[in-house]
């Protein structure tokens, strides 16, 4: 009983941290985008305001039970992947479940929510939602390949599938995997561009084309939960990248610095890019990123 309370407390603390950092990143993204476009832009805390406003919407509608549950599904992905990913080196301060699951579990729990939300989007009956979902799933089939290649390369090189072990390897050798497995890092970062769904891979929720796609029928509290889940998940993903490629972090400040540096990559790449069509983006991921992934596997297998 005491243990369950302890873990629940850990989950709540990590959730609050991830939520605030994730929302701040989203706000900073808008600010930086504005500065690149020579605008003044909204304040960095703009997304906090947006989230509070969405939660204070009085009415909301749903088209049925699946749409009602959709945001809860996506929240499961965010929270459980946050729990499985170790936040700090040595599991300090955040008592999570990261000794219970490994990378392959993480890969699968990461698609749990999007699929659940896709079901919710499907129930709305809005053709835009369904089109967005098919695009998203196609794109996922694209970027998962380089991403898995990068992970497999790390797994076979260090003979572990656990994230904690990969972090320990870096702490012991004092060398980031980003430098010792550069190709894996390249492939993973390229996959990350698709994972964040910023331009040029924003076909899923393209507002001008699909009226924000899967989210087009969600407003008020549903959008509130979705937006929170999105920010928590963004932080979880960035933390995962920092954990397995950049040596993890000893305290929260280092973690924030590293994750933000990483977050700049999809952000800046996105600001300056137009948009790919679905088959173009799928093929892009099976092109150079997968090639780097293969190189990573070769490097891991041969050296």
């Amino acid at each position, binding site marked *: 009983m005491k243990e369950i309370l302890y873990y629940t407390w850990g989950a709540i603390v990590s959730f609050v941290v991830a939520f605030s950092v994730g929302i701040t990143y989203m706000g900073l993204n808008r600010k930086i985008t504005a500065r690149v476009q020579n605008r003044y832009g909204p*304040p960095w805390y*703009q997304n906090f305001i947006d989230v509070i*406003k969405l939660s204070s919407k009085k*009415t909301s509608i749903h088209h049925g039970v699946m749409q009602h549950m959709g945001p809860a599904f996506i929240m499961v992905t965010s929270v459980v992947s946050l729990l499985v990913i170790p936040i700090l080196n040595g599991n300090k301060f955040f008592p999570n479940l990261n000794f219970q699951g490994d990378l392959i579990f993480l890969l699968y729990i990461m698609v749990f929510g999007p699929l659940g939300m896709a079901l919710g989007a499907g129930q709305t009956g809005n053709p835009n939602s369904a089109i967005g979902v098919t695009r998203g799933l196609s794109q996922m089939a694209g970027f998962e390949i380089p991403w898995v290649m990068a992970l497999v390369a790390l797994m076979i090189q260090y003979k572990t599938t656990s994230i904690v072990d990969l972090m320990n390897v870096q702490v012991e050798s004092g060398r980031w995997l980003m430098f010792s497995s550069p190709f894996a890092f390249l492939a993973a970062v390229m996959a990350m561009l698709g994972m964040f769904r910023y331009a040029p891979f924003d076909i899923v929720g393209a507002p001008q084309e699909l*009226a924000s796609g899967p989210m087009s029928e969600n*407003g*008020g509290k549903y959008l509130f939960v979705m937006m929170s889940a999105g920010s928590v998940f963004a932080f979880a993903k960035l933390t995962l990248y920092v954990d397995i490629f950049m040596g993890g972090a000893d305290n929260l400040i280092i973690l924030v610095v590293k994750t933000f540096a990483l977050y700049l990559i999809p952000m800046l790449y996105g600001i300056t890019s137009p948009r790919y069509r679905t088959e173009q983006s799928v093929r892009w991921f099976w092109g150079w990123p997968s090639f780097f992934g293969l190189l990573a596997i070769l490097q891991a297998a041969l050296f």
Partner: protein
Amino acid sequence: MINDKNSQKIVDIIQNFARQHSIWVLAYGTGCGAIEIPPTMTSRYDAERLGVRGAATPRQADVLLITGYLTTKTLKRVIRVYEQMQDPKYVIGFGSCTINGGMYWDSYNTIKALDRYMPVDVYINGCMPRPESVLSGFAKLQELIQAGKADGAKKYKENLEWYRTNQKKVIPNWHMPEYNW
């Protein structure tokens, strides 16, 4: 504690602040006025610094921006969009056409005064209103929200029958699901 009057007041202040500074606009580009929206949103006038941002669908939007004249055909769609939006919601009438019909004052198929058909919180005058005046319109709306006076949606709910009669008077083929609150 939650039902305490003072804490309710604090919650109200926070909520009004959030509503005031996060305005997601569904720009319903009905007429020529839609051309003024891009400069308002982009680098020159940058409405995003006020928290104004475009919304893709009525479900997500807070503000319905009606840019210009409304033919009776379009009015039906606009009413539909307005009714699909979630509370609290506001309407901005943009340009002279929404106030008195503007240059279409004697047209046989445009409506003259928008607020006979739906509650308008803020009018922006001009033909065309420049982006500056659009921004000042948003600022005015923010003021109203902060003071809790932007209650068009409430008015619509209360006087639904009056609005319905007016709407049905000008729209000949009314095939719409009845609005259930």
